[in-house]
């Protein structure tokens, strides 16, 4: 295990920012720590880097307990949301800065600076001032500066959040490539589920200072273990449901009866549940169509053209609103349609929280 957090807890005054977080990163792994703003992600980064002394718990790097070690003695590379390049140094001096503190000969240092600037495609910017670079170039120099001393772990704290959409997508690919080429163990912290899904080997979803779930991004997306994960990881319809019977679980959702043989919850008839289903798994069909499988009928109340798809809102007879994504133009608002609910796309949760 390259990085291990063991029961990490941090309180600011009476406020618990991080609550008993245990997490491990294998060598070369890219783990995305995903959660809404203020959920304690940055505090975890600060504790790993050594800029925050956690209230409780341990941080282990390559098996050694570094909880009380100062930041400079940990081999941790750090990239913040906003640029921390030194304006009084050139790009090359910035990248060399982390090498100056280690026992590396000046010749070797020059080689490493050139090597890492080349890695991020900025070998010709070596003598430039950081102020002369674009936002994306600055991010890449920071990546080179963090990686040049060959850290055990690279911490990326919302590195893309301050960038606009197109630059963000390009830089995300760049980070993926650089991580692949260097094989550096990486913790990528973000509130953006797209960035997290696209980059991560493994995903840890945080909520209110705790890890809510960890797993493969696709597995968490397709089969979310909690309601929070279902709603935070991509868009999701939350529909109230009632249990009709068990073995297999049968529920009533929006007036339709669905059997959920793969459901993890087990509940007696009459229990209230919440069923999540993703907008892209729903299908709009004309009401008079031949309809195998469960479906609910409703009226289209809103259609939004989102470019690559249409977002359609359908209000069912039971008064619930369903978001449906659809690549082809949908029927106009006001039309009554039938929405198919594929049972394999429905995840049931207890109504009382998790």
């Amino acid at each position: 295990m390259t990085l291990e957090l063991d029961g990490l807890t941090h309180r600011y005054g009476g406020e618990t920012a991080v609550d008993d977080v245990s997490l491990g990163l294998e060598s070369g792994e890219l783990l995305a720590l995903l959660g809404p703003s203020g959920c304690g992600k940055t505090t975890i980064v600060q504790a790993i880097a050594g800029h925050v002394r956690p209230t409780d718990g341990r941080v282990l790097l390559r098996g050694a307990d570094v909880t009380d070690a100062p930041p400079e003695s940990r081999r941790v590379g750090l990239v913040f949301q906003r640029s921390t390049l030194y304006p009084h140094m050139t790009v090359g001096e910035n990248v060399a800065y982390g090498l100056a503190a280690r026992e590396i000969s000046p010749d070797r240092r020059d080689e490493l600076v050139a090597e890492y600037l080349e890695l991020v495609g900025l070998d010709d910017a070596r003598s430039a001032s950081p102020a002369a670079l674009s936002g994306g170039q600055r991010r890449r120099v920071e990546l080179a500066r963090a990686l040049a001393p060959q850290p055990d772990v690279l911490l990326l704290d919302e590195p893309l959040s301050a960038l606009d959409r197109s630059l963000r997508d390009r830089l995300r690919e760049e980070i993926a490539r650089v991580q692949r080429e260097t094989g550096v163990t990486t913790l990528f912290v973000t509130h953006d589920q797209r960035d997290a899904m696209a980059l991560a080997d493994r995903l840890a979803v945080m909520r209110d200072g705790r890890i809510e779930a960890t797993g493969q991004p696709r597995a968490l997306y397709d089969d979310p273990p909690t309601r929070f994960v279902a709603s935070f990881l991509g868009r999701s319809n939350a529909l109230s449901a009632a249990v009709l019977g068990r073995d297999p679980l049968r529920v009533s959702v929006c007036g339709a009866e669905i059997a959920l043989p793969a459901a993890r919850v087990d509940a007696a008839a009459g229990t209230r549940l919440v069923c999540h289903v993703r907008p892209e798994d729903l299908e709009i069909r004309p009401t008079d169509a031949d309809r195998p499988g469960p479906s609910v009928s409703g009226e289209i109340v809103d259609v939004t053209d989102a470019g690559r798809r249409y977002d359609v809102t359908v209000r069912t007879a039971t008064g619930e609103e369903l978001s449906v994504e659809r690549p082809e133009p949908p029927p106009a608002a006001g039309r009554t349609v039938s929405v198919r609910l594929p049972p394999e796309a429905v995840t049931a949760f207890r109504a009382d929280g998790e």
Partner: protein
Amino acid sequence: MSLSKPTGARRLGRTPELLVPAVLGAFVLLYFALPFASFLSRTGVEHVAAGVSTPGARVAIRNSLLTAPVTTAIATGFGVPLAYVLARASFPGKRLVEALVLLPLIVPPVVGGAMILTAFGRFTPIGSAAAAVGVSLTDSLVGVVLAQLFVAAPFVIITARAGFGAVDERLEQASRSLGHGPIGTFWNVSVPMARSAIAAGIVLTFVRAIGEFGATMMVAYNPRTMPTEIWVEFVGGGIDAITPIAVALLAVALAVLGVIGRLGRVPTVIEE
């Protein structure tokens, strides 16, 4: 029917936004400029050269050029670290420390001088202990430095503190994570990033020190510095007697302002 017409008409009749504050400010500028002009017009080059070369004036200039840089160096050496702590740390009693830094600015210099006498005067424990090892804390160049330090040191502390406060703490955290310890980070990142503010603070402290009169008069009337010499000359010979040395004092202050202002702008090159 153009929509832009009314806008254009309004712009024509509009007074410039900054007219009122500019007029008010011009009064202050005039008030500053007039004394300088009238004072300097009383003096000629030969008059200054002759006045500055009298034995009394030469000693005073030498003493000032000796004490003010020492005072500035001490104020900077001890004050800049204090400024850094005040900018970065929060601790119980911090407000008290901050108030203590401001206190010498609130106290009139002549009262400050009296206070120094009560703490370091010849017959105080500290003063007599220093005298026993041959160092006189009053009526000596050491006394001049003590007086200047009390009055002038707060300027570099306050200005540098504001400078450090404006440096994003994450730049320092990045430096630590890149393997540099707290002292290396202070020298390589914090000081260069705050250098303009520190330079401004040094200039303020220097000009305040070299022009210090009230506290110096109480603590060390002798040996003379430029301001005390100016006072003595004025009592004896009026305005015309003091213009040469006053001009010299002004010239030194302006020269230091120019040199340090330039240093503050030049990027500090990081060795290695």
